[in-house]
């Protein structure tokens, strides 16, 4: 136990009298601290693990470059990731509808709106095509993929088209015009 026998020290000859003091130490504070640390280590060991976002990209076959997925323009929404943490999106075919420039804060709302519109108009799910341009950062890409999963759009087929050759002329023209490329 946590006591020590200290009784033999004083009293010889009866001259000096030392008070017998208990050597019992109050361990409560120490136990408190120990449990605090235990809790900390228990939580951090399992929580510090980073998370993984799965991305599946369409197969890129060099021998068969014509293997392309045709999507109906009535149900597509194209999102371009451009310079300065902004996005440009438009519905349907490039050049035929007016693109919208937006920040990342507003894209969730637009996604949900367009998703509903497409569902009401055609009865089918929306197809979102993400095109990161050279001005985008990696964070933008993660953010947009995250937005898609939050809004539960494009769950079956994520269409990421990051080849700069696949940018439409009208898209490039629009981005140049607005200084976003």
């Amino acid at each position, binding site marked *: 136990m946590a006591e020590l026998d200290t009784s033999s020290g004083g009293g010889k000859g009866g001259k000096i009298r030392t008070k017998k003091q208990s050597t019992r130490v109050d361990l409560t504070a120490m*136990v408190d601290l120990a449990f605090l640390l235990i809790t900390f280590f228990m939580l951090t060991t399992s929580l510090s693990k980073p*998370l993984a976002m799965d991305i599946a990209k369409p197969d890129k076959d060099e021998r068969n470059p014509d293997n392309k997925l045709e999507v109906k323009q009535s149900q597509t929404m194209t999102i371009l990731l451009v310079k300065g943490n902004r996005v440009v999106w438009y519905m349907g075919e490039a050049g035929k509808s007016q693109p919208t420039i937006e920040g990342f804060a507003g894209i969730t709302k637009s996604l949900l709106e367009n998703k509903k519109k497409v569902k009401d108009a055609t009865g089918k799910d929306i197809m979102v095509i993400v095109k990161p341009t050279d001005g985008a*950062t990696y*964070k933008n890409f993660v953010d947009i993929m995250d937005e898609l999963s*939050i809004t539960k759009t494009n769950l079956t087929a994520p269409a990421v088209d*990051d080849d700069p050759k696949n940018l439409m002329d009208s898209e490039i023209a629009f981005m140049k015009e607005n200084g976003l490329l």
Partner: protein
Amino acid sequence: MPRVKVPRKSTAVDMTAMCDVAFLLLTFFILTATSRQPDPLEVKIPSSTVQFKVPDKDLTILTIGKGKVFIEIIGQDVKKLTLQKMATEYSISFTPEQIKRFAVISSFGVPLNQLGTYINMNGDQRAKSGVETGIPTDSTRSGELFKWIEQARYATAELHQTEMRISIKGDAEEEYPTVRKIVDVLQRQKVNKFSLITSAEAAAK
């Protein structure tokens, strides 16, 4: 009637045993907690709301930052075999001692011809030497990065009979073209599924 005397007992509880148990557990958790190894390439990972945890085996992590790529193969056995396979591929040789030392290096980004010297250095020298220029990515078809990933996949398949997972750990501010280049390398060997490592973010309603 005489009053029954209840002897007053002390309310102090002996904490010793509790203290013992608490510290025993504490020691256990401290020891089992995996110590985070310092990354040679510091990156600030973006956050997302995904809930899927990164697996801790059969995995290769590609760290992208400042235009450089570092590779980390998880699992000492896989790492050793990958190095041996790479050595055969490029017909260079490593001593058993070097292979042993290589097994404990976490993440590295050194061209293969300097890897031998890099392995022989200690931690401080490695950071200072300036050989950590990233894995060369110049050619997507036969570049060193391509080979490293390919050989690591072979090694995983050989040792654990599973498909190796590939994770990309990119710096939030990294320009997209660098990421695209790495993804291209992966897609060239038909790796179309990979994961992006992110930190946790409070889920939006």
